[in-house]
């Protein structure tokens, strides 16, 4: 893949906004801070890629045009990208494609979602249930937690994973988030706290679930030659996307997030990177078990369940995962989620991540995001500046 750099980036806090600020405010904040981080001006941007999952949340159709206007961007390429939970990550990949194909020189990728403050939880949950097959699952009143729970149960039956494994992940990601000043749930909780939290949908309990969050995140993508002199920036080295059957029951293995492996192989080939060179990962942990399911599907280690129990995914481990806190800890404003994941990976590789960092930054990091229940999977490989 050609030289696409993550020239800079920024995010707002992810939380449930109660300060009367609007999603338009968050967009402007993330965009201006990202520009400053990249040492660029608004006039340097020639394309805006907006990531926003649902107009039902923002109550703004055609949001890309509106956001461009609010940011003071005129007569540039503007478009919106959507792919469920993978929306932000897909927008980053779409922006990178513009740069690598020469259709744009400096792309701002701006992800935003305003669900938590705009609507009550039941309304958001009802809309999320349309993320699957709206004519079957979506009509039965089932929520995301139950759909993920059924997949997790299949995974547990196949692998021997337990609720204790899931609880360890949920607690660790919240602990990781305590180092992240933008995090929604920086909680000092233990595995026992997770197991004692209120039941939601067996085997999941309240602390196994990621929160509904508000927020925005922005990254600037450009080739090195189109950036000012400065510190080296991480390279978006490889990208892959793959889909799976939408309905869980149509899959041969409903506990396996198979499409992630397909997306990973495409990304690795593009990056010229071997799987054992990946030294850090930001993985889509909408639910605690989903993190383990993702690691199983990605195959970053021979036996992810044993690796989890052995502590290999902690900050001291061989492959730190979700040092940002992930969705469980950092939060999940859908359009912004994947953008923030890419930003965290890049800043980790650059040695300037403002949170929990490994002792030594690796050369390659992986970013994994999905929509539906691993129905639309995006994987990117980010490489440290050299």
């Amino acid at each position, binding site marked *: 893949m050609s030289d696409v750099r993550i020239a800079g980036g920024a995010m707002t806090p992810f939380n449930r906004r109660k300060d009367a600020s609007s999603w338009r405010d968050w967009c402007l904040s993330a965009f201006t801070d990202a520009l400053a981080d990249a040492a660029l001006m608004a006039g340097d941007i020639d394309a805006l890629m907006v990531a926003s999952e649902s107009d039902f949340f923002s109550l703004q159709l055609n949001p890309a045009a509106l956001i461009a206007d609010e940011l003071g961007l005129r007569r540039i390429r503007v478009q919106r990208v959507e792919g469920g939970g993978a929306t932000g990550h897909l927008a980053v990949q779409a922006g990178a494609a513009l740069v690598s194909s020469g259709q744009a020189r400096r792309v701002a990728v701006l992800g935003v979602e305003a669900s938590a403050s705009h609507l009550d939880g039941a309304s958001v949950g009802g809309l999320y249930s349309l993320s699957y097959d709206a004519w079957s699952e979506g009509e039965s009143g089932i929520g995301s937690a139950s759909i993920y729970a*059924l997949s997790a149960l299949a995974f547990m039956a196949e692998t021997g994973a337990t609720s204790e494994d899931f609880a360890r992940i949920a607690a660790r990601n919240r602990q990781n988030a305590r180092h992240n000043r933008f995090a929604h749930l920086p909680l000092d909780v233990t595995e026992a706290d997770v197991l004692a939290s209120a039941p939601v949908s067996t085997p999941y309990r309240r602390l196994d679930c990621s929160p509904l969050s508000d927020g925005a995140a922005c990254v600037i993508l450009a080739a090195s030659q189109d950036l000012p002199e400065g510190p080296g920036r991480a390279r978006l080295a490889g990208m892959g996307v793959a889909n799976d059957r939408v309905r869980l029951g149509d899959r041969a293995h*409903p506990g396996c997030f198979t499409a992630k492996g397909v997306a990973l192989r495409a990304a690795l080939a593009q990056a010229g990177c071997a799987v054992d060179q990946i030294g850090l990962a930001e993985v889509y942990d909408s639910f605690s078990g989903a993190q383990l399911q993702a690691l199983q599907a990605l195959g970053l280690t021979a036996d992810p369940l044993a690796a989890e129990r052995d502590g290999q995914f902690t900050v001291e481990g061989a492959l730190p995962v979700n040092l940002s806190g992930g969705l469980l800890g950092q939060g999940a404003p859908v359009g912004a989620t994947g953008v923030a994941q890419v930003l965290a990976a890049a800043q980790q590789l650059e040695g300037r991540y403002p949170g929990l960092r490994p002792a030594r930054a690796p050369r390659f990091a992986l970013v994994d995001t999905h929509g539906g229940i691993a129905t639309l999977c995006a994987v990117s490989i980010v490489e440290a500046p050299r």
Partner: protein
Amino acid sequence: MKRPLQLDYNIPRGRLAPHFEALAQGRALALRCSCGHVAFPPALTCAACGAHDGDWVALSGQARIEHRTDTPGAAWALARFAGADTAVMLRIATPELTTRRGHLVPPEHHAGLWLALEETDDDD
């Protein structure tokens, strides 16, 4: 600022309409492809061979639960209907029962697939 929004959609089911009309009556209507693959719920494209045609075939409505999840107010399951090559996510109409066999019943307060569990699993 408060901004209420109430929408009343009218959604045609197109080629899949017979399945949904049967479902409303508690009957299981699957789509059998010329290759023999039986999809329940049906899909426009056969997962086995990619064909776009097929014939409607009535299933018995008997199903077996493969995985079940319970919420404080309801229960859902991944179940496989007799005669179908795919599994399906459905709502359990009798969450107080913990058996694994059941039969399709007409929807209650939500549309979709509802399964009433048998009192016993004696046939296993």
